[in-house]
């Protein structure tokens, strides 16, 4: 094995281990200095994942670890999501809580690359268990924790039983799609986070579920794809019909993940990646901020807008009526459900996190289609 190959393998392994190291460092630091350390660790993790994406290790496929370029790019999105989570949260006094996003991102990255999708599901279940254990430790949170574990485990069990049925059968596809929709937390079906801290767990968790959905497509067959598209379509239209009333905002929050699931269903993996980028950088509980609303609603300069274009261009080949329905649904959702127009009009946000998110999303929106044209995916 030559020197260069050894270096790429080492870097790939380091990129997996790095968030765990980050979690240890962040937990070990005293509280006032932990945020700075977390920023450095998350930033280095982003740089590492970008390097691993550009210089992939060749021997990975031989040893059974699945490593296609889409999954590697997905890990880049997860790493930037971690950076943004650290950037916009203040200093957390609790050690376990402040290391939780690092641990969950690390486990999500491992889940996307596991040799079999079932193993990935197991790793996700571990992430769920750890996350729920950490943020339901305060008194009075036990019922919430039980609700999270219940919903997440139901999703895992559904996907597992879909994997047990023969490949390509209708029941198997439907079961796996139901399980994935629950794991992704698509709004009317299974959105199971409520509290502010929950996005520490569920941003990487839902992102990894979307990445896993791409790998489960081979087992699910046509029924799986159609069920995913149907679920995404229902979610988009429900978002549009719910409007912008205060308590219905949770529908709007999962708008990019609904579109990402549709993109997975029509086999537009690059579009799904762009929506995943939007989800990791702007999803969760940030929908109160102007820039996040811009991103969630797929307004032009940014990855989700490019993702919409790619999705629609692929979907017109898949089925015309569904494409028309999707366009109408997205337009209606943007017109009716985008909250707080005044804040959304602002293009360049004032806070640091918003600036980083906007620049990363714009760069991704240019780079990912460029990489697709150059043949990286």
């Amino acid at each position: 094995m030559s020197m260069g190959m050894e270096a790429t393998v080492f870097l790939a392994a380091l990129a997996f281990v790095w968030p765990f190291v980050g979690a240890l460092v962040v937990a070990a630091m005293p509280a006032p200095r932990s945020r700075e350390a977390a920023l450095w660790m998350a930033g280095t993790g982003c740089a590492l994942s970008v390097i691993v994406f550009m210089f992939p290790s060749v021997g990975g496929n031989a040893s059974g670890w699945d490593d296609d370029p889409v999954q590697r790019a997905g890990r880049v999105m997860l790493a930037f999501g971690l950076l943004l989570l650290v950037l916009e949260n203040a200093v957390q006094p609790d050690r376990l809580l402040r290391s939780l996003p690092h641990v969950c991102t690390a486990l999500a990255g491992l889940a996307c690359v596991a040799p079999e999708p079932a193993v990935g599901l197991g790793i996700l279940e571990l992430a769920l268990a750890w996350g729920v254990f950490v943020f339901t430790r305060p008194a009075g949170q036990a019922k919430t924790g039980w609700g999270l574990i219940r919903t997440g485990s139901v999703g895992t069990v559904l996907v597992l039983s879909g994997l047990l049925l023969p490949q390509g059968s209708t029941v198997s596809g439907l079961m796996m799609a139901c399980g994935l929709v629950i794991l992704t937390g698509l709004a009317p079906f299974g959105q199971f986070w409520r509290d502010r801290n929950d996005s520490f767990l569920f941003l990487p968790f839902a992102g990894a579920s979307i990445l896993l959905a791409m790998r489960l497509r081979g087992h699910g067959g046509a029924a799986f794809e159609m069920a995913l598209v149907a679920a995404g379509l229902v979610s988009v239209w429900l978002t549009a019909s719910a409007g912008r009333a205060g308590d219905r905002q949770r529908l709007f929050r999962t708008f990019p993940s609904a579109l990402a699931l549709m993109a997975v269903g029509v086999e537009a993996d690059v579009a799904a990646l762009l929506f995943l980028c939007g989800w990791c950088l702007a999803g969760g509980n940030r929908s109160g901020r102007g820039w996040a609303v811009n991103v969630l609603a797929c307004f032009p300069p940014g990855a989700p807008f490019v993702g919409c274009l790619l999705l629609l261009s692929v979907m017109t080949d898949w089925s015309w009526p569904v494409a028309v329905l999707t366009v109408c649904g997205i337009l209606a959702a943007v017109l009716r459900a985008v909250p707080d127009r005044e804040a959304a009009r602002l293009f360049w946000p004032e806070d640091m996190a918003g600036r980083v998110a906007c620049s990363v999303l714009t760069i991704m929106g240019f780079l990912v289609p460029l990489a697709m044209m150059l043949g990286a995916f």
Partner: protein
Amino acid sequence: MTLIAILVPMVALCVVARGVGFLLLAGVVTALAMLVDGLTPPHEVGAVLALLFAAVPPLFLTRYQHDATLERSGAAVPFFALGLMVLLLLACSRAGSAVFPAGLCTMVAGLVAVVCRQSMVWQWAGLLTCVEGVLLSAVLGHQPVVLGVAALAGAVVLLLGGMCVHRIMPRVVPLRAAGQRSTRRAGPSDTGADV
């Protein structure tokens, strides 16, 4: 396919209808169904895990008071589970598989218990029934990877469910000895003022 594999979904229906009391029986029947099918290491591991996941919750719950959550769900819930099982059977036979999907039927019954029942202990029993079903199905289908993942999911549900039960439900407190209580009652008269 054995008779005992058909018994498993029936016992799972009893869990849906009556609660956590039937979980132990479901575990025993699942383990038997696995062992009847073969005696290879995956079968034995699966049987041990099925027994473990079914035996621990009832034992653990004896330390806590009875869960008195008012159930609003009606008597129709087991029939709903039965209907879903029949649908699953029809779909599987239409897809061309001749084997009776005992594990998946058990899983469906457990799902109905999780979704339709309100009390936490009942939902816990339902989730563990789901896990039993997936374990049985993985063992009979010779898929060791899925067996391992199902075991992990079962362990997570068992541990965190037990933790939530410990935090939510009141413990069983042993009654004081009669002699002690009588001396209290005979003591100073300010005991009544506290109440």
